[in-house]
């Protein structure tokens, strides 16, 4: 295990002939692509084109109607990925450092929480309850979750939502660092995130 590549083996993600239905309606079908260590795949498409459904299917929340999602170089699919959805997963009454401590426990991560906090620009807000955070700060806290436990595959659903210009730069640098370490990033975006994607998947509008 090299210092620059924390993941035991090179992660690989392969999606073949994937079809996902929501509420009885087929969102997309026959989706195939692959991602390897260091890849950043951009998902683009109109609202309702299935970006979130694709990410949730890969995360294992949604059962696909047909098709195969396979992971290589990882032990247990659900344990090798981080999912950052529209919802930040915050408890209004719990403070910033308590969130990070909880996530570190939940994901069996062993990192310096103070360093993670300052890394996402929340160093001065450690004792603020989540209800006192702005939308952008809440998003930064959710981004910090990606750092409390290193996991090779990141699934990001519009990660830049509510973030200011600095926050966007932060995301770009997080993604760059993750790719350098041999991680895979899959992100649904409307605006470019700053890191040059290795592939752009266009989901077609079916409505």
């Amino acid at each position, binding site marked *: 295990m090299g210092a620059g590549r924390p993941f035991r083996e090179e992660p690989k993600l392969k999606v073949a002939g994937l079809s996902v239905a929501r509420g009885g309606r087929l969102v997309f079908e026959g989706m195939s692509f692959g991602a390897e260590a260091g890849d950043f795949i951009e998902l683009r498409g109109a609202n309702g084109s299935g970006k979130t459904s694709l990410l949730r299917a890969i995360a294992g929340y*949604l059962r696909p109607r047909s098709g195969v999602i396979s992971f290589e170089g990882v032990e247990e699919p*659900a344990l090798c990925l981080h999912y950052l959805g529209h*919802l930040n*997963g*915050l*408890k*209004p*009454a719990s403070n910033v450092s308590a969130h990070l401590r909880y996530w570190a426990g*939940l994901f*069996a991560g062993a990192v310096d929480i103070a360093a993670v906090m300052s890394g996402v620009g929340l160093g001065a807000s450690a004792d603020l309850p989540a209800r006192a955070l702005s939308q952008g700060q809440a998003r930064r806290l959710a981004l910090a979750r990606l750092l409390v436990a290193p996991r090779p595959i990141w699934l990001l659903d519009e990660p830049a939502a509510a973030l200011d210009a600095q926050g966007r730069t932060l995301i770009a640098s997080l993604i760059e660092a993750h790719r350098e370490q041999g991680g895979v990033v899959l992100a649904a975006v409307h605006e470019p995130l700053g890191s040059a994607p290795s592939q752009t998947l266009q989901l077609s509008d079916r409505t």
Partner: protein
Amino acid sequence: MRAVFETFRRDFALMWNGGGGALAPLGFFLGATSLVPLAMGSDRALLAAAGPPLVWIAAALAVLATLERLFQADLEDGSLDQMLLSPTPLEALVLAKGAALWCAVGLPLALAGAPAAIALQAPAAHVPVIVISLALGMAAFIAIGLVGAAVTAGVRRGGVLIALIVLPFFAPPIIFGAAVAQGEAVAGAMAILGGCALGALALGPIAAAAALRLQAE
């Protein structure tokens, strides 16, 4: 293990100081039991015969009120998605949430059972055993309640639905708990109450976790 501990710590803290309302069920319980003597009049013999089992009904209803938001909040704010990505099985995390609820709400309710039972003319000698039986009964109620809370997590205003799902399963602990409260066959009733609690604790988290996995879709 760490995930279980951190889940317990977070839930316990949220219930006590996060406006999670650990005190509200306690207030409901004491309020409801103190209304009983007012409703039944001053006949002490009548109160002594009918009162102590009412402690159990009040406790069951008080715990029901805490169940609605137990998983609904996690589903709405995205916490459930994260729980599913933990290396610790969801069943263990659900059990940790149940344990936190028992410590934050169940145990205080069981202790509040002492003054309530005395107010309802239970003999003082029965009070310790009533408190212990309530603590066991709370564990059974909460473990059963986990399933109801998980099944209805996606339902708006699911509180009444939880009651419909869960109340039939509350019957065994209520029957034997009321027997303890009246001082009938205490040893046997306690053993069965313990059995109810253990059985519910073994099965409840598994069923609740299965329901939550479906909710994540």
